[in-house]
């Protein structure tokens, strides 16, 4: 019993020291805001507060679209003051959400499909075919393509934005790096790349990683979660490609946004830390970076809010 206590103390000391070192590396202007109804907001429909934000997307005018798994709503927030501008109910539990030229692509876990709404919440059509767990979605407006992560199908399904199913990533029949437990997705249209986060499989000793494929589903490279000291990660979720081409990724366990250099794969900086205070994250699940301002927005799921790191996306 005594040895046990001594050991525990030692581990404790070692980790506290380590924790302090990590903390010293922080520093960014942060803002914790809970989406709220502003004075001018239309109260047409009974609308619950945002409580379990999961995925987030943005349009070209600074609006944010957030899915709430628990409330079964999609919220439109103003990216500057976080006022809830609109909200609509989904019949089922929404996961992935992506804005695409006036439409919203919503992954519905309950109906196992991707439903397409206009921004006022009117259902337009479904993407063709089943997606077992449409956990995250990305849209390429130039090419009119929708990329859907199928968490249980363990692949990315690519659709024509009008509905038809096209193909799967990773490309089948090619011996290459596959996806084990994919979660989040982002696109780098300039490079023609699809960036996917993957939990890996701890039993099979496959570490978590960010995996990058080209649009055809051919593997290019990965950033492993088990290599870089200050940038170790194990529960990667949503991703974003920033203005300078850097890769932003939230780790849902650590409560951090890790930023990686696209070319070298090396860690550049960290935003946030685990906790409930402003600027802290508890179960963050997704991230977007506003191209013009470099503002970084994170769904801070267990803190019931969206977190803003103003200018955090600038180099």
């Amino acid at each position, binding site marked *: 019993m005594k040895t046990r206590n001594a*050991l525990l103390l030692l*581990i404790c000391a070692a980790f506290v020291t380590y*924790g302090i070192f990590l903390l010293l590396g922080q520093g960014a202007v942060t803002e914790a805001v809970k989406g709220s109804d502003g004075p001018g907001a239309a109260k047409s429909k009974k609308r619950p507060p945002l409580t379990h934000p999961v995925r987030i997307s943005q349009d070209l005018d600074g609006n944010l679209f957030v899915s709430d*798994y628990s409330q079964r709503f999609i919220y439109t927030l103003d990216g500057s003051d976080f006022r809830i501008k609109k909200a609509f109910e989904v019949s089922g539990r929404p996961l992935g959400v992506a804005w695409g030229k006036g439409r919203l692509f919503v992954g519905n876990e309950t109906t196992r499909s991707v439903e397409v709404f206009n921004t006022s919440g009117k259902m337009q059509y479904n993407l063709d075919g089943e997606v077992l767990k449409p956990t995250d979605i990305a849209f390429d407006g130039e090419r009119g393509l929708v990329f859907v992560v199928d968490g249980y199908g363990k692949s990315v399904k690519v659709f024509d934005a009008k509905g038809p199913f096209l193909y799967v990533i990773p490309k089948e029949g090619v011996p290459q790096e596959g996806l084990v437990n994919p979660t989040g997705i982002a696109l780098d249209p300039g490079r023609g790349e699809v960036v996917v986060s993957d939990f890996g499989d701890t039993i099979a000793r496959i570490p*978590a990683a960010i995996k990058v494929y080209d649009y055809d589903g051919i593997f290019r490279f990965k950033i492993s979660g088990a290599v870089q000291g200050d940038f170790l990660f194990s529960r990667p979720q949503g991703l974003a490609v920033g203005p300078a081409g850097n890769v932003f990724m939230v780790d849902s366990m650590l409560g951090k946004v890790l930023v990686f250099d696209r070319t070298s794969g090396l860690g550049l900086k960290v935003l946030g830390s685990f906790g409930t205070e402003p600027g802290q994250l508890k179960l963050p699940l997704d991230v977007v970076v506003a191209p013009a301002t470099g503002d970084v927005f994170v769904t801070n799921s*267990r803190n019931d809010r969206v977190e803003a790191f103003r200018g955090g996306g600038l180099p």
Partner: protein
Amino acid sequence: MKRLILILGLAIFVTGVIVLLPDEPGAANPNHDCSFCHNIHGAPALALLKEEVVETLCLTCHGPAGISTQKADVHTNDSPTQYPLFTITCTGCHDSHNDRDNWLGGTNIRLVGRRLDSTGLAKVNTTSSGIQNTVFESRGTNEGGPSLHSFADGDEDGNSVYDGICEVCHTLTKHHRNNPSGGHVHQVGRTCTRCHEHVTNFIP
């Protein structure tokens, strides 16, 4: 320097696990591997002693975007309610390691009831009645199990102990309190979590 400390910490932790094992329950639930929760990259292992860290850990897999097919949430009444505010986290009801034997000689399922003292028996640290035994051996009649020793026993076994997981804490609810007062017939034997789901905080 940082890396050195990390390696040291990990080394000590691994040694710790080996040394502590005899004292420890042994194997994890077959659905879980030790690596699911220990030696997580970048996360200090000992932080697992903090409830909110453990809750987050569970939700990385059992939360909305997690990789488990089984979705969960805490038991809380944050919406308007007639009761004082409470929040019961995952480890308020579940053991982090294994299915525990219960005080009636059976073994609980689904990690319900945790090891809280040297008896190692499945217990719950209740909100207002101290540490109590809990028995959970059946998922109820909707799931094809027996009524007896499921969520709320309504004292079906006639031993004057209300040790079902969905009654062991309750002292104010309309149904299924941990004492003879109030109603004990509401849906008794049914699979309560069909209507009282984790994802809605167990509120119907």
